[in-house]
């Protein structure tokens, strides 16, 4: 299959991008003026502590050796130990990662379901009042800063009406038998609703507009005209032919959206004190907890790059013109 060689080259590219970003990150943290490490390894430490830190991060070696050590550790999944939590970064990051994924997937699924349906409807209602009123509303929600949407929701539904908690992922004092039990608890869901709504409000614009534009384009295609000539029902034309074709790029956008949201949720996680990756990154940077910041950033990057790859994969799987290329 021709598609497979394309995918192999995309996979190689993905690894290349990951490696490059990791290297850039390494250089930023080592070479930038005012490196937080320099700030951290400071007079407040005893000389022994300083030495052990320097050894731990290999600061006593040459830059190249440090780089090899860094890459070597990375390949073993060793991200060092958090200054603040005094625990391996991998462990600390994983809990946050689960929270972030729950928030991202929850909001994306809501946003894309809503966006796709509304987008298809707006395309169908092109030129009517529904569209004339709907499109500006969509554009406005898309233009609103997601954290500001969060603030307004918080002010109204949490502080004003008291329906939802004002932050965090779980109520204090709760304990769960496992990470899964925690995420699938009602308590977690109650905490999730507001931030997920804020995000979904912001995210729905893209799938909606994309779906609408694609639908309008597909509706112009000859095969849709032919479907009408064949006397097929409106339902069959819109759903089976127009929507199926229009969904291709939306599916890709969904995969890309996962990657982008994991990093982009930083602000919403901050507003809702959501213990996710983004907020962890912000806190780590603010507290000069450099191994943690590095780990969180790398994890976010990995998700982003992986999802870029998945989007590519998805596109070639969904579009027979690519999946079944060659073979004549």
């Amino acid at each position, binding site marked *: *299959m*021709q598609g497979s060689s394309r995918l*192999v080259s995309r996979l190689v590219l993905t690894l290349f991008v990951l490696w490059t970003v990791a290297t850039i990150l390494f250089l930023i943290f080592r070479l930038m003026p005012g490196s937080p490490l320099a700030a951290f390894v400071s007079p407040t430490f005893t000389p022994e502590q300083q030495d052990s830190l320097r050894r731990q991060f290999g600061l006593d070696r040459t830059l190249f050796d440090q780089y090899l050590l860094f890459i070597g550790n990375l390949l073993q999944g060793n991200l060092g130990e958090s200054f603040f939590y005094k625990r391996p970064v991998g462990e600390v990051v994983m809990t946050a990662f689960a929270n972030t994924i729950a928030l991202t997937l929850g909001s994306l699924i809501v946003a894309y379901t809503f966006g796709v349906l509304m987008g298809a409807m707006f395309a169908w209602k092109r030129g009517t009042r529904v569209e004339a009123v709907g499109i500006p509303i969509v554009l406005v929600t898309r233009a609103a800063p997601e954290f500001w949407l969060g603030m307004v929701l918080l002010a109204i539904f949490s502080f004003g009406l008291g329906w939802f908690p004002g932050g965090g992922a779980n109520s204090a004092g709760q304990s769960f038998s496992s990470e899964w039990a925690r995420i699938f608890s009602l308590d977690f869901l109650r905490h999730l609703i507001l931030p997920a709504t804020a995000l979904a409000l912001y995210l729905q614009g893209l799938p909606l507009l994309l779906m609408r534009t694609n639908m309008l384009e597909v509706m112009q295609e000859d095969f849709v005209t032919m479907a009408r000539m064949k006397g097929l029902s409106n339902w069959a034309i819109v759903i089976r032919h127009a929507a199926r074709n229009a969904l291709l790029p939306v599916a890709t956008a969904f995969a890309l959206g996962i990657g982008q949201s994991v990093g982009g949720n930083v602000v919403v996680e901050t507003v809702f004190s959501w213990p996710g990756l983004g907020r962890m990154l912000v806190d780590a940077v603010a507290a000069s907890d450099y191994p943690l910041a590095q780990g969180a950033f790398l994890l976010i990057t990995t998700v982003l790059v992986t999802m870029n790859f998945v989007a590519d994969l998805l596109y070639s799987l969904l579009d027979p013109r690519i999946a079944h290329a*060659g073979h004549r």
Partner: protein
Amino acid sequence: MAPLVVASGLEKHFPVTRRLGEVLRGERPVSRAVDGIDLTIGEGETVGLLGESGCGKTTTGRLLLKLTRPTAGTIRFDGGDLADLAGAALKRFRREVQLVFQNPFDAINPRFTVFRALREPLQNAGVPKEEHPERMRVAMHRVRLPDVEGYYDRYPHQLSGGQLQRVVLARALVLEPRFIVADEPVSMLDVSVRAGILNVMRDVHATMGLTAVYISHDFALVRYVCARTVVMYLGKMVEDGPSAEVVARPLHPYTRALVQAVPVPRVDQSREPLPIKGSLSAAQAQVGGCRFRDRCPYAFARCADEEPPMREVAPGHRAACHLL
């Protein structure tokens, strides 16, 4: 007739997207658009390159104008090798050869007026400014757009297809070239205006003594405009001879099928079944032997083993078939 363009052993291969297995085995599959063409065009000759889509006729035309580099083989223009052309020599070559395009609706920058479009080649060639008006006027007269002023200020979208193609032709003629390649110049035009363009091309050829290659899939058109016809099939020449001869006494089975297939605007036409099988796309993979053998009703063992060379059958009439 002194030869103006001499192509020998001309090949052009395009890389195709590789499959995984091919990448791993280090294979580099190519599509052989042009695969060994020897063609000599005399000064003042009009040659029709005839063939179905995918036969390599357009690529051949582009190779002759040095718009793309051949994979193998040489082209000599007026004695000089095109591969060596560079700098001033290349600029001179660009003045002496021109191309007329298939799609007149896209051949002029939509942001240019007719005036700017006609002036551009003159500017590029460094023709003194004071000569521009006269040169442009002459070219416009040649293509029978005599009311020059009425056209200069127009944009492409303000002209009809026939007018546009005349402007494109005028732009090609404004530098008084010696050699011109026209790639399906009327296939996008309406029937009623095609004849006008074809007649202009015939006139231009006669009055300017231009050497010309007309690329077309339309046998009747080639017959009308060109004294000589070259038939191509899958990157190879299969027949070459005086147009009237090729039509009246086609030698190659493929040419015979073409002659049969060409529809004519009369009702008293023959309804004989075509002496050909299958379609071009199915035959694409053939390498070695005669490329036409899968569709040829007369194919025999030798056709699969040995590639038939071009053979002169009558004076100036050659074809590549083992049956000759």
